[in-house]
């Protein structure tokens, strides 16, 4: 018997009211892959991400995690599925009234049976993983953009999620910091086997870390390519090649 795909999206349409941003989305994400959702500005990448993680109901279609229909599941079941996701928002979205340590600790104290001392240790370890050891007592407002993202990653990893969803990891970061964050993502995937869904338009990052991808087109409001980003670059759809080469003919 075959294992159902880790994430399976079929016939998905997302948008706002009458306005359909993307429709007829069909793709699957395999366990342990780094899956890239790419496309130009305003193509609906973030809207798709919000539908994947349960922040915005899709207009049509289904999202399945391990074969289980996410949006048609009862509220309680959906929250349980949601807890298997770790989400890194664009700006980090750290809770500004809490310190970094408290940010990472909150999901742990909410959903695990660990004692406070154990939680403190887990928090210190997760912060060390993202290179922020010793910053536990800082408030988010005292950190730089790159540090906020890494702290957000530590929080997203707090509950050891099966799936990590990352919105625009490199936005607002300089190329080197962005690359270090990419390397961190790959490292976490390699060591923990986490499936990663990355929403991005950063070419360097797409080509460096993507195992599989989907390209969302803003003009036709649907996906026009799937597959490994390098395949898409070499012999994909002309529009996708145009995107992946910054419009320069190869």
């Amino acid at each position, binding site marked *: 018997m075959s294992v159902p795909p880790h994430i399976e999206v079929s016939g998905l349409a997302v948008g706002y009211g009458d306005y359909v941003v993307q429709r007829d989305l069909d793709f699957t994400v395999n366990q342990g892959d780094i899956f890239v959702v790419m496309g130009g500005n305003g193509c609906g990448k973030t809207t798709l991400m919000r539908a994947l*993680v349960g922040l915005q109901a899709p207009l049509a279609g289904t999202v399945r995690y391990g074969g289980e229909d996410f949006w048609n599941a009862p509220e309680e079941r959906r*929250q349980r599925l949601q807890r298997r*996701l770790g989400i890194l928002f664009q700006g980090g*979205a750290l*809770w*500004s*009234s809490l310190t970094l340590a408290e940010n990472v600790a*909150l*999901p742990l104290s909410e959903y695990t049976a660990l004692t406070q001392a154990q939680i403190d240790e887990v928090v210190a370890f997760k912060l060390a993983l993202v290179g922020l050891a010793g910053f536990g007592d800082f408030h988010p407002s005292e950190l730089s953009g790159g540090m906020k993202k890494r702290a957000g990653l530590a929080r997203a990893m707090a509950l050891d999620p099966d799936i990590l969803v990352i919105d625009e990891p490199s936005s607002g970061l300089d190329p080197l910091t962005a690359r270090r964050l990419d390397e961190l993502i790959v490292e976490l995937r390699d060591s923990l086997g986490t499936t990663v869904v990355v929403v991005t338009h950063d070419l360097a990052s797409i080509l460096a870390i993507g195992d599989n991808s989907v390209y969302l087109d803003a003009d036709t409001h649907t996906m026009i390519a799937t597959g490994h980003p390098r395949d898409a670059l070499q012999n994909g759809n002309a529009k996708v090649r145009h995107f992946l080469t910054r419009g320069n003919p190869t």
Partner: protein
Amino acid sequence: METAWQLELRPAAARATILALGGRWRMAAGLPAPESILDRLTPGTRRLGFDASRLADWDSGLPTLIAGLQKLCTARGIELDTGGLPAGVQRLLALAQAVPEQAVPGRSGGSAGICMRVGAAVIEFARGLPAMLAFLGEVTLAFGRLLAGRARFRLRDLWLEIEEVGPRALPIVSVISFLVGLILAYLGADQLKLVGAQIFIADLVAIGMVREVGALMTGIIIAGRTGAAFAAQLGTMQVNEELDAFRTLGIRAVDFLVLPRMLALMLMVPLLTLYSGFIGMLAGLLVAVTIFDIGVFEYYTETLRALTLTHFLVGLSKGSVYGAMIAFAGCLRGMQCGRSAAAVGHAATSAVVTAILLITIAASVMTIVYYQLGI
């Protein structure tokens, strides 16, 4: 000094004119209107060219002017040859025309009339009511969980909020209450003098401040001070996706963020109301003693005679209700906030307006109900 722009119209071939540009064509020094240039042409001109050989200096005002000329010339059937212009001007014109003007959907031109706008505002208000009720439901459920001991929030947050809304509001509450007490005393004394019953200033100020005015003034001060702050805090959290982060983790933002704020205000506004009443009475005493020659002790005993526990309880109940309403309005508008800086400002404004509206409605309803019940 070199003059500003110079323009010379030079007739060329049949029905053609060359516009010879000279001097400085810069926006700061002023530029001619395209219409005025065309008006100077000999009627029947069919072609226009340029000679920029004496042009000393230009900025983007020149291509703007040429673009205007182009539009007019197309409308009047005049051929415009931009070949004689500086290369930079030609390139800017080409750049501006590279992407044709688009009819962007959802941007209807012109501003709507007053009826339209009033209608839209009414519709928007009506649409807001279900959201308000839904939030009321959520908050009620959160209080249910609190009573059942299952609500999750940090006591430290509650203490921080209490400190912020309580002690730190004392100065402004003192000033306003003192002045309002002063006004009440003067107003009352003026009328009571007519019947020689000035001693009743004490009754008027004591009962007025403790029952009504203290709570109302405190409510309005706290709505502006704290209600707006709540909306701005939660609104900023919305902009930063912090509320989304709560939602995806299944942590109830209402428990975590709204409960401590509601509790803080429901505890502190009644206390501030008491304090406000006390300060108001002090102001009344001051007026009575210094202006209307009433003895301190006389005023004191009259105040004691007038005030009953009921008056205090009425004032406290009003304070609690106003506090709850301010927190409700502030948190509601904050959670409903859009995702931009302007939206945060709007949320704060809207929170104060909603809070004052709710307070006024509640004040009227409670005054009438208490009167009917004879309390």
